[in-house]
């Protein structure tokens, strides 16, 4: 029976594969949701089965449903199952599903790490490819950290197919796990010169993306990219490189200067529009960065503008659009070059494509001058009338206002004209930008004192004709201008010709249909007008007029007292009572005008938008600290923050109703928002602030399209055109007075636009019509000078701002610190320290800091030395440097899955430098090539002193030091890292005294060697595990043949055992996870478990391998003896002197001592050696006496007191384990007997 059910469901599965599902969905158009829900039920059944094919099919269907918008997150685990299938067919589907459905929050991603790692190292390149592709979509910080090293290894895969994918995905890894950038960068850089163009292009892509975000770290790559740019013919690559240069030039203008020529060449020669466009853009960027203090590159600008003109004139809308876009970039720095194409741009305003029109509008913004502003605005006004869609018309409106108000009304010479334009714009029905116009009116009226009379007259007319604006619906955005009009008329009522008439207009019953906040302003300003009227009639014998005014108010105000709007109600009732009182006084013939006017006395000053921000925070004031106890969570947070400011206004301080329902609350909030937005006391003066006025309340108002083919004409309103004419006449009169050249005047009248920038009249010649006093915005007295535009702190690219230069140039380098090694997977993962753990270890960051300070010293020292140095030498050093960088990043360890380990062109490691320095130069060809090309580069391509060549000079200086010394020093540094952060204090010692540099030191000692292979090794304890040590072995292929199938085996002792993977027998060897091409070396790590650490020990072992040459392959072996010294169980541990003293006082330690005769070396060398070779740290040093400390992996304390006098060194030592101490002392003795 059960079988039947299973069979049945399998059958059903066969019935419905993906195609059937798709077909089914298409056939169930009416009840799609229902159909799909039955399908999902079926899929759930299918997923329950054990058959992987069924599962894969189900997952495939789910992927499709996911695209349709159905939630499939519940099947995440099934997706992982399908990903893990050994068959490519299903694996492919699994990874596809994962890449479509997984995101950072998917918890099953954690489970995939090992599967992905396995796939990455699969012998089948398509398995690897599919895993890489999938990973690129769902990589998380954890995955990035755990797999960074695996992917990095793949960057050197033999197949370009894998290499290019690995290179590309590294970018995603960097984003998620920025610590990987420094260790991976040298290899990435190497890929810039990969023989495969696809890999090369991938590397260019990644570095360009990196450099765009943090260009300064990549300046040193400029010569390399320059070479690529001039040699590459691949447009895809060229575009990326050119874009990269665009990012670099702002930081290094001299680079830009060099770029101009090749870029202009490309512009001339290329037929690819995309490349042309990129070149033009970069030339623009370059010219922008050059614009300060460089001779003008008018030829290049002309070329760009010309090419862009061709683009704009093209019939292809896309090119037209991009041409305009690029033009707007030129406009910022070279407005004149663009202005000469005004005709073309104005023509684009008529284009049928709205996006093109909008781009053209953007350009207009930068093309106005005092001379052509009126003309351009006139043209735009025509477009406003013609425009069919409200969106475009609104855009035009904002553009007009932007253009006019830009840089503090810089281009406006006639404010009467501007006010008329604003008034004309009020005819636009259905616009959303009533606020904008209103705020402009307010701003101009407040700040341009000379215009107030005119403005008030215009506003009075507006108020009088308010019915034309409001139309049939009160919810019209444009009625916002009435707000401004009422306020201006009230505030500057002394300029009104007939205040009585305006007052009457403001109190019409129709006003009650306006939005509340506008009514409120009406009421308030009616009171101001009332005061003005009273004052006007003061002193007249006949008090009739004044009394009539009072009467008018008393009659009309009750309408507002009944308003549903609290604000209106409140103001109206106050004012009504006031007027009633005044009326009483008037009847007694008391003079009241002065007192009433006093209510509204005082000048308003505009406040700069940034004023508040600029007030420095007084010392000791913590704005984030709570003043009171923080309120409980349950209180509404919504209301809180706003209340702070709203309550400052008295009108909001009282609430009449204690109980208000939510609707009312929301409504009030809305009203208050609008109030705030429109309150003249908040007026900001600069144009940029205008966006603030876009009160959210009006955005959702449905906009009615009204045919404006017959422009509304408001009676009595002046047309802006007449001001244009007036202005022109005025200007000419002015000019005539100045120059008296009649003919020129006439021509000027007609061809004004054309000659905009070449005309004889300069900008300054145009004087404003009135004496315009634009009131500047007020700033707090002690305002902070600059405003810091912070970058988004959440920008993922910020984390990638990592100094890579040092890594590259080497000389002044901050070498990779231990903490920067990529997590390497050894065959016992628990041995691993994650970088996070590393960081916990205090000693490491300290160490690197100290190092860098030491390097600085070195630099200085070097500079003082002889300046000449042969190029040859420099090259050698370069090679040397290149070589040296490598080992830190290459420790690929995949012992478990290394059955089919890939061939790797593994870079040489440090061991070679130390043990066979002569071979180092010859070994790795690609970095050498890179290095060689670089020093040549500046000579050929950078005759001028660009930064990079400067950089090189510096280097040269530094490298004046004798070669040997330098080498030694660097070795010294380098090996500090290998000694697990050893000897931080020895470094310190080195810095403290300017004594002679330390000799070279290495902890790698020879393990075994024959004609094929050489092995050196180092043993290190581990912080985390008291019974494990890691043996790092560097294998170097000395032969001309290929070494493969290396197997490392050790005969375990009772005390020390090689850790083998689970399931392996105690005598099985471990496969070395790489193969060695001729001349290449690589490092592998092996973990050993130890029980007792008090005695040194030797383990016998054998390495077997296959030597493969062209015609034959032979099986070879090499025996070796691994020497576990007691020193190797010690771990450098910093210790503070007080803790040290306590330790010695405790009396738990047993003593021993050692004398060394005839030690002929400086004391700091001696200490450095002990630190380095024996993993001690200096606790304290006084003259020729030092205390040192170390700890074993099992927690034994080892304390040394080292004294020296006349070539005799005495060491008093204490430790809680005497035999360990004895052995360590013996080993120290041996170290010094060797030298």
């Amino acid at each position, binding site marked *: 029976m059960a079988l039947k059910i299973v069979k049945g469901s399998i059958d059903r599965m066969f019935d419905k594969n993906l195609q059937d599902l798709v077909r089914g969905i298409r056939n169930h158009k009416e009840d799609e949701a229902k159909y799909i829900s039955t399908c999902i039920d079926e899929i759930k059944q299918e997923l329950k089965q054990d058959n992987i094919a069924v599962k894969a099919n189900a997952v495939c269907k789910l992927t499709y449903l996911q695209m349709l*918008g159905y939630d499939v997150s519940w099947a995440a685990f099934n997706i992982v199952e399908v990903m893990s299938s050994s068959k490519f067919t299903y694996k492919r589907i699994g990874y596809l599903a994962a890449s479509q459905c997984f*995101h950072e929050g998917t918890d099953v991603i954690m489970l995939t790490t090992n599967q992905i790692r396995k796939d990455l190292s699969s012998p089948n390149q*398509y398995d690897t490819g599919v895993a890489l592709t999938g990973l690129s979509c769902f990589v998380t910080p954890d995955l990035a950290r755990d797999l960074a090293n695996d992917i990095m290894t793949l960057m050197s895969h033999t197949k370009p197919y894998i290499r290019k994918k690995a290179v590309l995905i590294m*970018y995603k890894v960097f984003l998620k796990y920025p610590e990987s950038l420094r260790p991976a960068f040298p290899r990435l850089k190497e890929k810039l010169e990969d023989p495969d163009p696809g890999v090369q292009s991938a590397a260019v892509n990644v570095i360009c993306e990196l450099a765009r975000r943090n260009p300064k770290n990549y300046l040193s790559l400029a010569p390399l990219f320059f070479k690529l740019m001039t040699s590459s013919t691949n447009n895809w690559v060229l575009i990326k490189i050119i874009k990269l240069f665009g990012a670099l030039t702002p930081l290094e203008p001299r680079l830009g200067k060099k770029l101009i020529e090749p870029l202009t060449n490309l512009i001339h020669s290329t037929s690819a529009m995309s490349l042309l466009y990129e070149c033009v853009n970069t030339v623009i960027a370059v010219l922008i960065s050059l614009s300060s203090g460089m001779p003008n590159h008018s030829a290049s600008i002309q070329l760009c503008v010309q090419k862009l003109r061709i683009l704009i004139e093209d019939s292809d*809308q896309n090119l037209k659009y991009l041409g305009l876009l690029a033009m707007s970039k030129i406009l910022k720095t070279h407005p004149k070059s663009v202005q000469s194409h005004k005709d073309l741009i104005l023509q684009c305003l008529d284009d049928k494509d709205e*996006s093109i029109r909008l781009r053209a509008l953007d350009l207009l913004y930068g093309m106005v001058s005092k001379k052509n502003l009126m003309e351009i605005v006139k043209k735009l006004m025509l477009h406003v009338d013609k425009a069919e869609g409200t969106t475009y018309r609104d855009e035009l409106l904002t553009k007009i206002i932007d253009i006019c108000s830009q840089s503090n009304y810089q281009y406006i010479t006639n404010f009467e004209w501007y006010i008329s334009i604003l008034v004309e714009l009020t005819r636009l029905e259905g616009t959303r930008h009533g606020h904008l116009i209103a705020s402009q009116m307010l701003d101009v009226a407040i700040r341009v004192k000379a215009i107030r009379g005119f403005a008030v007259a215009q506003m009075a007319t507006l108020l009088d004709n308010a019915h034309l604006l409001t139309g049939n619906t009160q919810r019209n955005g444009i009625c916002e201008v009435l707000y401004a009009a009422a306020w201006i008329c009230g505030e500057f009522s002394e300029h009104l010709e007939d205040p009585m008439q305006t007052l009457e207009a403001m109190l019409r019953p129709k006003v009650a249909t306006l939005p509340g906040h506008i009514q409120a302003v009406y009421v308030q300003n009616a009171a101001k007008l009332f005061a003005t009227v009273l004052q006007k009639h003061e002193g007249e014998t006949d008090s009739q007029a004044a009394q009539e005014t009072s009467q008018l108010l008393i009659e009309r105000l009750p309408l507002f007292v009944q308003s549903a709007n609290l604000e209106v109600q409140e103001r109206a009732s106050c004012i009504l009572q006031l007027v009633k009182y005044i009326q009483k006084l008037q009847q007694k013939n008391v003079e009241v005008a002065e007192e009433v006017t006093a209510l509204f006395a005082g000048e308003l000053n505009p406040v700069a938008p940034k004023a508040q921000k600029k007030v420095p925070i007084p010392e000791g004031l913590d704005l984030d600290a709570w003043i009171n106890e923080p309120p409980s969570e349950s209180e509404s947070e919504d209301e809180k923050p706003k209340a702070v400011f709203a309550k400052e206004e008295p009108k909001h301080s009282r609430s009449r109703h204690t109980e208000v329902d939510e609707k009312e609350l929301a409504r009030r909030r809305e009203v208050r928002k609008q109030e705030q937005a429109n309150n003249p006391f908040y007026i900001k003066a600069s144009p940029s602030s205008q966006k603030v006025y876009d009160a959210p309340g009006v955005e959702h108002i449905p906009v009615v399209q009204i045919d404006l083919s017959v422009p509304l004409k408001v009676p009595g309103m002046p047309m802006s055109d007449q001001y244009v004419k007036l202005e022109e006449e005025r200007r000419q009169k002015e000019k005539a007075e100045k120059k008296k050249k009649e003919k020129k005047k006439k021509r000027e009248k007609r061809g004004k636009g054309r000659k905009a920038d070449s005309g004889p009249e300069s900008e300054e010649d145009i004087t404003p019509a009135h004496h315009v006093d634009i009131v500047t915005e007020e700033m707090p007295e002690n305002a902070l000078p600059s405003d810091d535009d912070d970058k988004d702190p959440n920008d993922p690219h910020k984390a990638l701002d990592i100094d890579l230069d040092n890594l590259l140039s080497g000389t002044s380098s901050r070498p990779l610190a231990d903490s920067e090694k990529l997590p390497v997977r050894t065959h016992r993962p628990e041995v691993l320290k994650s970088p996070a753990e590393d960081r916990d270890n205090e000693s490491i960051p300290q160490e690197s800091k100290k190092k860098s300070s030491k390097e600085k010293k070195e630099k200085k020292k070097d500079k003082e030395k002889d300046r000449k140095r042969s190029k040859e030498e420099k090259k050698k050093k370069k090679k040397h440097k290149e070589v040296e960088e490598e080992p830190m990043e290459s420790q690929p360890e995949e012992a478990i899955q290394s059955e089919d380990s890939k061939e790797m062109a593994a870079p040489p490691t440090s061991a070679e430098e130390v043990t066979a320095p002569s071979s180092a130069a010859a070994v790795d060809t690609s970095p050498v090539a890179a290095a060689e090309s670089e020093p040549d580069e500046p000579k050929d391509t950078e005759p001028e002193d660009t930064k990079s060549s400067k950089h090189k000079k510096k280097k040269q200086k530094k490298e004046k030091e004798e070669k040997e010394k330098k080498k030694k020093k660097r070795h010294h540094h380098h090996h500090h890292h290998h000694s697990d952060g050893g000897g931080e204090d020895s470094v310190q010692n080195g810095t403290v005294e300017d004594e002679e540099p330390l000799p070279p030191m290495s902890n790698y000692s020879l393990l075994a060697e024959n004609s094929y292979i050489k092995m050196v090794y180092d043993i290190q304890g581990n912080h985390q595990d008291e019974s494990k040590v890691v043996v790092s072995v560097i294998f170097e292929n000395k032969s001309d043949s290929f070494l493969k199938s290396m197997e490392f085996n050790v005969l375990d002792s009772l005390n020390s055992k090689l850790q083998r993977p689970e399931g392996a027998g105690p005598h099985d060897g471990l496969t070395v996870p790489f193969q060695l091409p001729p001349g290449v070396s690589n490092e592998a790590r092996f973990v050993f478990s130890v029980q007792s650490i008090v005695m040194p020990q030797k383990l016998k072992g054998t390495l077997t391998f296959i030597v493969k040459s062209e015609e034959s392959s032979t099986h070879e072996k090499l025996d070796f003896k691994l020497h576990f010294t007691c020193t190797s169980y010690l771990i450098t541990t910093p210790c503070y002197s007080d803790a040290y003293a306590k330790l010695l006082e405790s009396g738990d330690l047993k003593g021993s001592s050692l004398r060394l005769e005839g030690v002929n070396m400086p004391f700091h060398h001696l200490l450095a050696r002990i630190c380095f070779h024996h993993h001690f740290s200096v606790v304290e040093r006084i003259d020729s006496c030092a205390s040192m400390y170390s700890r074993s992996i099992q927690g034994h304390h080892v304390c040394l007191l080292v004294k020296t006098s006349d070539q005799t060194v005495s060491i008093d030592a204490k430790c809680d384990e005497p035999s360990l101490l004895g052995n360590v002392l013996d080993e120290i003795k041996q170290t010094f007997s060797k030298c």
Partner: protein
Amino acid sequence: MQFMLLFSRQGKLRLQKWYVPLSDKEKKKITRELVQTVLARKPKMCSFLEWRDLKIVYKRYASLYFCCAIEDQDNELITLEIIHRYVELLDKYFGSVCELDIIFNFEKAYFILDEFLLGGEAQETSKKNVLKAIEQADLLQESQTEDWGGLANEEIL
């Protein structure tokens, strides 16, 4: 490139590839918004639009819209080229591709895209190489299916 969407004239999503991590909700929202915006544009309009802080590059091929989101500094024309390349690849693979090919073989369309773009960057500019990689992967798939005798004889694990 941040993402690529394929949708039909009716606004039905046919393919989506996201190169930035976003929640499903956000993806849906973006898709809805973009589909609407792009479909509302007139046929003669240019292929670029600014949207949020991104640039949208789209192109219509027959009944399908190909729509990519790129960042501010990215090159619009090369993005059009990428779209065109992808269409050519689909065309070569399916043999004069139509919307139905992509609907019924949507996983294949993804595989092709994945061989062409990785992490939002073009990984292979040679059409030949892309098709070769796809062919070989398909071959591998087929041989495996044969080896295992097709679905019917699939061993029960």
